[in-house]
């Protein structure tokens, strides 16, 4: 396909929860543990997994909110993890984030116009007199009216606020936008609107998305490829069609079976997983999914399976294949 925009190599993020008297960690939360993937220009990569599986952590590492414990983030050939703080900051205009909660992600003391203009101002992207019209353009792009620019965030509904958040992300003309569950805080009718908007903007601005969500149904609508995460690891990754028609990892199969069917006549076999997600602190040995897996075989609780390419573009981390 086309060229790679961003490549993530062996990315790890460990949070030290507790350490002993000498400062050595005694309890470590492995939020993201050795994740590698790449996103091509113009592509949308969906990333799914239940809460706490580390997908948001990956997104936040991409936009410099977290510093990776180990690994590389290679953006257009440059390893971002090795840059100084100031140089890293300069990349903020290439990689932007759309937040999950539109009620928390807008500064309540700034007008919507200021919120959208700020990224342009601080990055000196446009001369002062052109900022106004740019803000007007951005507002219109996301479906808001120019006359609303002097209002404050609390005067808007959730869907409108998320549109403001999208306009803010677009303001710097980024190449990659990390969408961190951008619709999960909105009600269903608004979800579709925002998803369609994101789709249109992608074409209009030539964007690349990393789309994070916790269910496969939202991702299905928008992604080209989909990665499934479980407890800090990527367990399966495949082109959308392949993944939805031929899910290989038992966890993906269970997730897919949870999508409600539109057709009342097709009786789907629902796979109900038993047990809870093990704590990401002090993980058990072997495959992380082993304690809940319904296809467990001999040895699953001993060796941790790596990601294998089972058919072109379809990677899976499971001992069965």
């Amino acid at each position, binding site marked *: 396909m086309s060229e790679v925009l961003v490549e993530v190599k062996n990315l790890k993020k460990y949070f030290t929860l507790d350490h002993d008297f000498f400062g050595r960690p005694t309890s470590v939360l492995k939020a993201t543990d050795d994740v590698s993937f790449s996103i091509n220009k113009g592509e949308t990569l969906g990333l799914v997994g239940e809460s706490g599986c580390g997908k948001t952590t990956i997104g936040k590492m991409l936009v*410099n909110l977290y510093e990776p414990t180990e690994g590389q983030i290679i953006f257009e050939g440059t390893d971002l993890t090795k840059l100084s703080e100031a140089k890293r900051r300069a990349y903020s205009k290439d990689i932007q984030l759309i937040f999950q909660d539109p009620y928390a992600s807008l500064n309540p003391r700034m007008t919507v116009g200021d919120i959208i203009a700020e990224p342009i101002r601080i990055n000196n992207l446009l001369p002062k007199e052109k900022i106004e019209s740019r803000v007007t353009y951005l507002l219109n792009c996301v479906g808001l009216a*120019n006359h609303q620019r*002097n209002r404050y965030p609390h005067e808007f509904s959730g869907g409108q606020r998320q549109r403001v958040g999208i306009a*803010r992300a677009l303001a710097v003309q980024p190449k990659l936008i990390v969408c961190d569950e951008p619709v999960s805080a909105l009600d269903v009718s608004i979800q579709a609107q925002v998803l369609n908007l994101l789709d249109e903007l992608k074409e209009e601005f030539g964007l690349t998305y990393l789309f994070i969500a916790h269910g496969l149904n939202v991702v299905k609508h928008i992604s080209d490829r989909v990665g499934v995460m479980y407890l800090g690891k990527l367990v399966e990754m495949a082109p959308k069609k392949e993944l939805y028609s031929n899910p290989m990892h038992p966890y993906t199969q269970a997730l897919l079976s949870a999508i409600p069917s539109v057709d009342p006549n097709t009786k789907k076999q629902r796979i109900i997983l038993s047990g809870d997600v093990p704590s990401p602190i002090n993980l058990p040995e072997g495959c992380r999914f082993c304690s809940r897996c319904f296809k467990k075989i001999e040895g699953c609780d001993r060796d941790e399976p790596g990601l294998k390419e089972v058919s072109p573009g379809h990677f899976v981390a499971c001992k069965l294949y």
Partner: protein
Amino acid sequence: MKLKDLKADVEENSLQQALPLEKPESRLKEMWEALRENNAAVVGLCIILFLILVAILAPLIMPYDPNLSDMSKSFLKPGPDHWFGTDQLGRDILSRIISGARISLTVGLSAVVISLTIGVVLGSIAGYFGGKADIIIMRFMDMMLAIPSILLAIAFMAALGKGIDKAVIAIGLVSIPEYARIVRGSILSVKENDYVQAARVIGNKNSRIIFKHILPNVLSSIVVRATLGISTAVLDTAALGFLGLGVQPPVAEWGDMLGRARGFIFTAPYTLIFPGLAITITVLAFNLLGDGLRDALDPKSRKN
């Protein structure tokens, strides 16, 4: 609506300026409007302006020389000649209050400015950056808080020397920890908000995040503390004056007048009541204005 239609719409809009902006006024004007609608704040502001006017015009409006003592006229009750009565040395209390306004207002405001500036900076650094900076700054603040403030002020005075200007500095320094603690606490509660992270994502520097995104959102607690701080500063000056470290007699200062009059609380209560009232009214005025300011600064509580 498809994006292309939207864009056609944009062009039309920008050509015709179809809809005027809803609130074209400047931010400052908006705040002023909100403040004016708050009656309590307007009263507070009027009192403060009146006090400032009195302080400026003091030499012109004092009926008597505030420092001229005349023992034959001591302890005169309030009456047509001496509206607020006279004190134990026969000095006119009204004149002394008028001349004291200048000192008390300056002391109150400048002490708060000193402690507010340093306290906000230290508290911001401790709260925002955390880690070692937090530990070092806050333990130092704890050390200062462990010593009674008046004792600490006396210690500072011993190092700086006597005089009202030194007293202001000492009082300002002593109350830094209170501001630092409040600011640090509020910053900790705001810092994890998504909008602060968003500010970082779009490429803001730390200093800008603190001043533009965090501090405006913790303003209310700072404003309330600062207005109360003015009153504390006036009273602390009185305490230092009473110990002979602040204003030197015979200069009139409200707290000092209050301190010296306390022996006559039963025989001549007016010597005590009027300076006390002056302090109370000043403090009240600053509190009312502070409350109003806090509301005016918050877009959510503004009435539209």
